[in-house]
């Protein structure tokens, strides 16, 4: 268990290291002098001297060879210092943290919705495969998977806000503001997840120990709950791990559709205003969250299934 944990954390560090190299490289493929760009944003185009430029160069570490620049930058990142926004001149870390609540709210709500839809429907379908209900749900999930979330969001606004006048349209705010974005985000993920919950349950139900349980005379409900479901939860968690990728991508789109001031919207705004430090910081931040959640999901296997003991063998 402990060695597994260590290995996962080593992998996490490795991935983050790679991610940091990618983002650092991206920022340095831009033509032109990075220090000059910072100076232009700070003082205006013609309003700085070469002396001020060299101050900036030292300040952002651009006077060193590239590999040392990277180490220097990484040192700052490790201390939570992501530099300053070109546009607002405030620390990037503060800009990001200010946007986290809106994104977190949306992501958690969308994720919960996914679980609340996918798990019960997946179970119901697996109990009676190929029944009319199963077919209906599976057809619905095909639709859900193919539905572009940005289009779904607009349709929901058109129907529920504009035509039926039930829910608000704009920005962040109370729970009412969260309903449509959460549905938009959760629908596609629920569609995929339902299929996977169903499939993994079906696979488990075919296995020998379930047949044994049935022979022992356990009721169908007991078989499902006490044996099958417990083991099927592992793929469920895996799926939710896989869905986390979609979750992050989805929040970017949904925040844009509904004008929610989240991290995704911050990144889109940073691209429009060429605010590179914010772009870099936002990307790094989301990648970090992604890696962390993946680690947590891996670890949760160990808790969910006591038979799994992560030992020496290659896992």
């Amino acid at each position, binding site marked *: 268990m402990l060695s597994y944990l260590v290995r996962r954390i080593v992998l996490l560090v490795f991935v983050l290291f790679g991610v940091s190299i990618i983002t650092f490289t991206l920022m340095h493929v831009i033509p032109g002098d990075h220090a000059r760009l910072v100076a*232009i*944003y700070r*003082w*205006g*185009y*013609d*309003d700085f001297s070469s002396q001020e430029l060299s101050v900036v160069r030292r300040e952002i570490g651009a006077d060193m060879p590239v590999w040392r620049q990277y180490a220097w930058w990484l040192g700052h990142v490790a201390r939570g210092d992501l530099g300053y926004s*070109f*546009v*607002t*001149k*405030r620390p990037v870390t*503060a*800009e990001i943290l*200010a*946007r986290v*609540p*809106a994104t*977190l*709210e949306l992501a*958690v*709500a969308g*994720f*919960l919705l996914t*679980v*609340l839809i996918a798990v019960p429907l997946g179970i119901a379908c697996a109990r009676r495969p190929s029944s009319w209900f199963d077919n209906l749900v599976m057809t619905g999930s095909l639709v859900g998977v193919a539905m572009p979330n940005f289009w779904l969001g607009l349709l929901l*606004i058109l129907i529920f*806000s*504009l035509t039926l*006048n039930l829910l*608000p*349209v*704009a*920005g*962040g*705010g*109370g*729970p*009412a*503001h*969260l309903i449509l974005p959460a549905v938009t985000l959760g629908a596609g993920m629920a569609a995929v997840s339902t299929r996977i919950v169903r499939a993994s349950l079906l696979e488990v139900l075919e296995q020998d120990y379930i047949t044994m349980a049935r022979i022992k005379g356990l009721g169908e409900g007991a078989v499902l*709950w006490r044996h099958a*479901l*417990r083991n099927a*939860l592992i793929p469920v968690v895996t799926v939710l791990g896989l869905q986390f990728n979609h979750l992050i991508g989805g929040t970017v789109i949904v925040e844009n559709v509904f*004008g929610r*001031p989240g991290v995704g919207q911050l990144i889109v*705004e940073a691209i*429009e*205003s*060429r605010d590179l430090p914010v772009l870099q910081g936002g990307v790094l931040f989301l990648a970090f969250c992604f890696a962390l959640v993946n680690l947590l999901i891996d670890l949760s296997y160990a*808790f*969910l*299934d006591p038979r799994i003991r992560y030992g020496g063998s290659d896992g």
Partner: protein
Amino acid sequence: MLRRYLLLAVILCGLILAGCGKQEPGTTTGNQAERNADRVLVIGERDPIRALDNGFLLVEKTHIAETLLRMGEDYRLEPLLATSWKQVDANTWEFILRDGVKFHDGSALTAAVVVRALDRALGDNPRAKDLTKIASLNAADEKTLRVVTAKPNMLLPEALAGADFCVLSPASYNDRGELVRPIGTGPFRFASWDQATGQVTVERSPDYWGPAPGLDKMVFRPIPDANTRALALEKGEIDFTFDLPYGEIARLQKVPGVRVELYAEPRIYRLEMNMSRATFSDLKVRQALNYAIDRAGIVKSVLHGCGEATIGPFMHDTPWCNEAVENMYRYDPEKARSLLGEAGWVDKDGDGIREKNGKPFSITIMTWASRPGMPPMAEALQAQFREVGIKAQVQILEYGAIYDRVKQGDWDMVLASFQTSDPHRYLASVYGSKGSQNVAKYKNKQVDSLIDEAAATADPDKRYGIYREIQTIVTKDTPVINIACYRMAVGMRDYVKGFKFNPNAHDLHTNPEMTVEKRP
């Protein structure tokens, strides 16, 4: 195990609810009752509020801070924090401060505090020094501010009326000099700023020196998307907003409880060109582009009538506008084609795009999206240029990003919108060879000397005559192409009263006299 899973779900639910719980009062429709009790105005802001350190936000929008003087609607200076001012000698000015003015934290307005505030404004902005030519500032006594300029500057009082020179208490800043809590002298005091949403709330200052404002509270809620602003207004989530999408105006005017007011304002949609590039340094090409633009069609379809086609830069009813230039470039694509042919741009390979010296006429039009008419206008221009054999690409970027590229010389065209209210300032900055908005780097000695001549001419009618002469020259030379005069679409619920549009202020301003009158 399942239990653990459910527990997780419950915890997550709790998190969501906790997250939803913290919202500011007065922001949603649910708080209608509270909004009725207090006179609260919720304003749908067009631009995101990413920082408080912004004179326009502090002075013309939230009315937290005030300047020494104010530019009135008739272009005359009015006293504000300074009750009188005079020029002592060529380079020295004295401003007498108003008695009994207190900052929102109770401290008194003194000349020493004003010196610190103006020093900060000069230090923050390198152009402020150019504009004011201030060499030093000092407090002659408790209530007298003395300003010494490096060169004589007759326009110093006008410059100090600019919002960047607003007076904030030194207590507004932390030890690193960052603005943390704006403390001014205005009719409203700062209440809160949500960094995430950018929402700013101000409340009536109980001991304001002037007339009490008509509202108890103003909430500035950024909704950068014009369409969302229109919907929020329609649904009553906001009470007041600017720059409605033009396609929605006709419909909104019919919505009960909503009022849309259109204000012609001194602001121009113009196409700037990089005359440092050979393509645009050719006068024939610039004139051809002028003929290629169907201004009336753009106003009708892109702006939905919310604007006025124009060839000169000024509103047509101003005394300095030269109406004669309006006949210079009537829409004539045929003429545009022949001018381009004369300039050597011919489509040799038959792909519909003209070439010269083997290079196709292919350009990029950059524009920004916060003004709702600009992206579609750029797209319309793109198609109209295509009709005469010019290939254009449209690129939507933010204002700052666009002018960074302009300053680096890496650009073809920018579709822009700028205020034209002060004819002298506008002509000098756009067409004067040293003008700050002269991105084309246009140089015409005759124009320069006419600008100088106008500056030295006291008689307004004579001066306006010179402005008209300049318009004739620059319209012929056309370093920028004017397209239409702006019209601001202001939307409000019908209970909002007292809004006064000041064409000399920034067009997204509010005024402290505004109020709400709702039936209980």
